[in-house]
């Protein structure tokens, strides 16, 4: 436990360093001393102005919300991946595989394409800026619920059925999204493409405050299920014998993970692999104990996405690479390595 605390502190420092790096690098360069000076000035600790107004504006209005959004989305996706893998007792589970992301995307796309045609802006009037998040969240919940119901028999979620049901529902959601693409206008098509590739380009203080409540709920509550998820690794009835209410645990974890991931996908689109790979890195490097893996995934996932976004927006500057491309590009080799290592381990035993 002492050890875990140390690892978490190191991961927090990595996240701070990644964020500091990310707010400084870009078209408008900000040096470390200028960053420090802006921070002191903005917090009122110093009246000294050692920076240009342009630097300050870029930092406050563009970089900072973007880094915050990256950290929130990355942290939420990774923490959701960690709890999903624990909950379904399967190392390959992630929010995307059981339909959270595709469901959120589908409903977000429905919102984009159908809102002004069928609902006549009623929903936007009702939910305001949160309308997309609400739609994505509802979509995430519905698909996850369907996948979960399909896989549950006699109170037990069967893993094979779960993954197959996930594939089926993902395909179904994909085909509905395809249909909406077919009837969409050019502007809507651009928006839909944005969902499917994922990007933090839409970052503003508005998006950050939009997803903040949802993601914070996920990030703050899920670590409390660490012990119960550890017990669940022994088996569902074994966890019951240790006093865990397994069915309640399943429902709570699914709702809380879906909440954050739904909101994240709503503002950033489908960012793949962060949720799947991040928990595995921690497990392989340190321990499979959820008391480390769950909070650790949040911190590491946040760092990974902040850095990936830094690369995405600088590597082809002034253009911007969709971040989903980048995470899949880096994530896939890591994922294959995990599969191979896992197989080797099974053969050895």
């Amino acid at each position, binding site marked *: 436990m002492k050890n875990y605390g140390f690892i978490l502190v190191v991961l927090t420092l990595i996240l701070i360093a990644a964020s500091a790096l990310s707010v400084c690098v870009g078209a408008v360069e900000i040096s470390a001393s200028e960053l420090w000076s802006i921070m002191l000035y903005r917090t009122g600790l110093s009246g000294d102005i050692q920076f240009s107004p342009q630097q300050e504006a870029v930092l406050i209005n563009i970089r900072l919300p973007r880094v915050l959004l990256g950290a929130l989305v990355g942290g939420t996706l990774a923490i959701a991946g960690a709890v999903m893998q624990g909950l379904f007792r399967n190392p390959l589970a992630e929010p995307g595989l059981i339909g959270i992301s595709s469901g959120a995307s589908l409903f977000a796309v429905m919102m984009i394409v159908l809102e002004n045609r069928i609902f006549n802006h009623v929903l936007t009037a009702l939910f305001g800026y949160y309308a997309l998040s609400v739609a994505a969240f509802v979509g995430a919940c519905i698909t996850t619920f369907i996948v979960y119901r399909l896989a549950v028999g006699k109170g037990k979620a069967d893993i094979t059925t779960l993954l197959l049901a996930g594939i089926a529902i993902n395909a179904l959601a994909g085909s509905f999204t395809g249909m909406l693409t077919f009837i969409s206008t050019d502007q809507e098509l651009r928006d839909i493409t944005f969902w499917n590739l994922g990007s933090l380009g839409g970052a503003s203080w508005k998006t950050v405050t939009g997803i903040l409540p949802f993601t914070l709920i996920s990030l703050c509550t899920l670590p409390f299920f660490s012990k119960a998820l550890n017990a669940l690794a022994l088996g569902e009835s*074994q966890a019951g014998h240790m*006093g865990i209410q397994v069915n309640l645990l399943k429902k709570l974890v699914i709702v809380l993970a879906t909440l954050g991931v739904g909101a994240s996908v709503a503002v950033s689109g489908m960012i793949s692999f962060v949720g799947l790979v991040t928990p595995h890195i921690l497990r392989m490097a340190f321990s499979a104990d959820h008391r480390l893996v769950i909070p650790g995934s949040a911190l590491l996932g946040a760092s990974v996405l902040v850095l990936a976004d830094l690369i995405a927006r600088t590597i082809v500057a002034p253009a911007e690479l969709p971040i989903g491309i980048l995470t899949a590009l880096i994530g896939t080799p890591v994922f294959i390595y995990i599969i191979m290592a896992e197989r080797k381990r099974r053969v050895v035993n």
Partner: protein
Amino acid sequence: MIEVSHIHYSVGTKKLVDDISFDVQPGELLAVIGANGAGKSTLLKLLCKELQTSSGEIHIRRQPIGTYKLDQLARFRSVLAQQNTISISFKVQELVMMGRYPHFDNTPTENDKEIVKAVMTETGITEFANRDYNTLSGGEQQRVQLARVIAQIYDQPEGILFLDEPTNGLDLLYQQQILSLARSLADRGYCVVSILHDINFASRFADKVLILKKGRRVGFGSPKQVISCENIHDAFNIRVRLLDDEEFKCPLVIPSMVLTEQS
């Protein structure tokens, strides 16, 4: 400690547990024996509150089992299940510490750590405290799981331990070790209920034996009272002979086919 009176449990029209009554007191080891499908595991699930009886009463520590919450039960009652595959690999030490989960919130206390240490010594698994559970042999894994469930109730006076075929798939030495351990726990004041396949083990280690057949009770009492040729034939449908020599404190069962071959 555990009083079971006239419990029934059925799925559809099939009666899996049919009018079973028995009791176990602190310091006693009850062995439940019977052929495959006799309802042993179902009975254990009823005792664990995993299933609810259709009718009849189960009292644990003089209270109906329904009045306990799962986490209350977990503090004085632990269960060793038959299947113990774990989905995420833990170190042996971490796994045994999980037995203490019902007793601490986030960080184990000194007491928890000492209990884990003591139990690991008692079960002889200290040498692989830092090994990965999945790299252990079947017998070693079973001992680690046993250590976990003992740790769960170690400091509870009159704790209750349920074992579902604890010797399954183990070689003779490990079978002996595990049952001796169960016996010594009972001698220390725990109440131990174990499903067993080997009648001779039941006879040798248990204070009371419950024989089941198709969900019904064939016999209940001390090994001497209930392990008889008739009961065994009734429950298992095999002819046996009993060796009730003075050397043995308990009846020893030998399939009669073996005897005729020898003579």
